[in-house]
């Protein structure tokens, strides 16, 4: 069941000004597995997620201590190419955020940013990316329609496809289903199962049943600490830390 560690986090602390949002986090993320991060609001799980592709850099006053090794390279080292890091470690957000462009342009936008101009290449990528999120058959005749005309679920799928087009290795998902109904949620979860063959997925979710259903590993965050991390089966049947037990049984939060 174990694969290689694609991300190794060592003694990571993150501060927003004088507030310490993450306290000495140590965690290994396995490749081609789904890792779920759970915990009450403000526990640091989203901060942790955003640290993994240095999205927190965009927040003023953020200070980071410790290491995040992605494929053995510390992402905080000064020679890190941020554009390249964010291509390899992409993010899907809570609310689908397609560009106000056509469906096709949404997919090819990132590729153009990364310097790809070949029309055939772009068309093939468009096909493959939409196919990977099971949107091709639905949308192949509407590729020039504005992406904002799609349903919420289609938009979220499109955002995932847009990410896959630039061939990431890790997909970070921040509450990707919170704006979707249960049927759309189930379909996105099915998609996650398919995607984990080729990608590593880390998902932040408030929905504990979702974490239990989709993930191989679960980490529980509380007040900036990683309280417990382990195989999802173990966390949901026999958590070791009483704080985890209280949270997943609904006694706390």
């Amino acid at each position, binding site marked *: 069941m174990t694969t290689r560690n694609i991300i190794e986090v060592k003694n990571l602390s993150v501060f927003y000004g004088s507030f310490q949002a993450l306290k000495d986090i140590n965690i290994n993320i396995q490749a081609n597995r789904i890792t779920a991060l759970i915990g009450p609001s403000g526990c640091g799980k989203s901060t942790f997620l955003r640290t993994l592709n240095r999205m927190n850099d965009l927040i003023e006053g953020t200070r980071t201590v410790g290491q995040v090794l992605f494929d053995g390279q510390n992402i905080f080292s000064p020679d890190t190419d941020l554009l390249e890091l964010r291509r390899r470690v992409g993010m899907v957000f809570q609310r689908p955020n397609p560009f106000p462009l056509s469906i096709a342009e949404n997919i090819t936008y990132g590729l153009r940013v990364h310097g790809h101009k070949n029309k055939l290449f772009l068309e093939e990528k468009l096909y493959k990316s939409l196919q990977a999120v099971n949107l091709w058959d639905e949308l192949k005749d509407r590729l020039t329609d504005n992406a904002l005309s799609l349903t919420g679920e289609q938009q979220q799928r499109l955002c995932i496809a847009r990410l896959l087009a630039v061939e990431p290795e890790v997909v970070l998902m921040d509450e990707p289903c919170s704006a979707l109904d249960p049927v759309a949620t189930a379909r996105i979860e099915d998609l996650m199962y398919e995607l984990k063959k080729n990608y590593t997925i880390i998902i932040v979710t408030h929905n504990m049943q979702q974490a239990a259903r989709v993930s191989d590993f679960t980490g529980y965050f509380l007040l900036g600490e990683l309280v417990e991390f382990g195989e999802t089966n173990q966390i*949901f*049947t026999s*958590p070791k830390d009483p704080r*985890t*037990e209280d949270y997943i*049984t609904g006694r706390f939060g």
Partner: protein
Amino acid sequence: MTRYFDEELLELNKKILEMSAKVEAAIGNSIKALRELSREKAEAVIKEDDRIDRMELEIEEKCLNLIALYQPAAADLRFIVMSMKITTDLERIADLAVDISQRVLEIADQPLLKPLIDIPKLATLAQGMVKDAINSFVNKDPELARSVILRDSEADELRNLVQSELINDYMRKDPESAPRAVALLLVARHLERICDHATNISEDVIYMVKAEVVKHHPESLK
């Protein structure tokens, strides 16, 4: 934080205690029927079994509802799933009390083949194991559960003793004694099976409390 769910769990616990009390009474009465060769007591045990069967169904339904409606996790989940399993064992124990009572009905009108020595010992052991298994569940006491499991080999030995005595001293020597000897042999077998179910309950209690699997790993108890 108190949860409405806790009231539901208490309710489930109460139902299991009610069933346990009935099952303990069924074993006690079937053993009394055997000791006294009492038709009346044996028939009472058989009659009471319907109620125990109904309680089993009720508890199962309650457990399924709690799982479907609350999606419990961790200790809550272990409690509910183990409750279901323990209920199955309790129901089987009650069935074995019925089996013992049926043997009593078969032999009640004839003189006893032999004075009962080891069977009452086995009966006392079985009753004690069931009682302690149930108490270990009620008090969430893994140590008591462990002591039940360790007694199981004693039950096997007593059953073997009864069996070889009945075969060698009676059935081989006097084939005419076979029908009465077989009835006693079956009683020993029923009692030993009761001990097995008490052991199952105790193993489930250990998992419920400590999330440790001791089933099929007797060495982990030592």
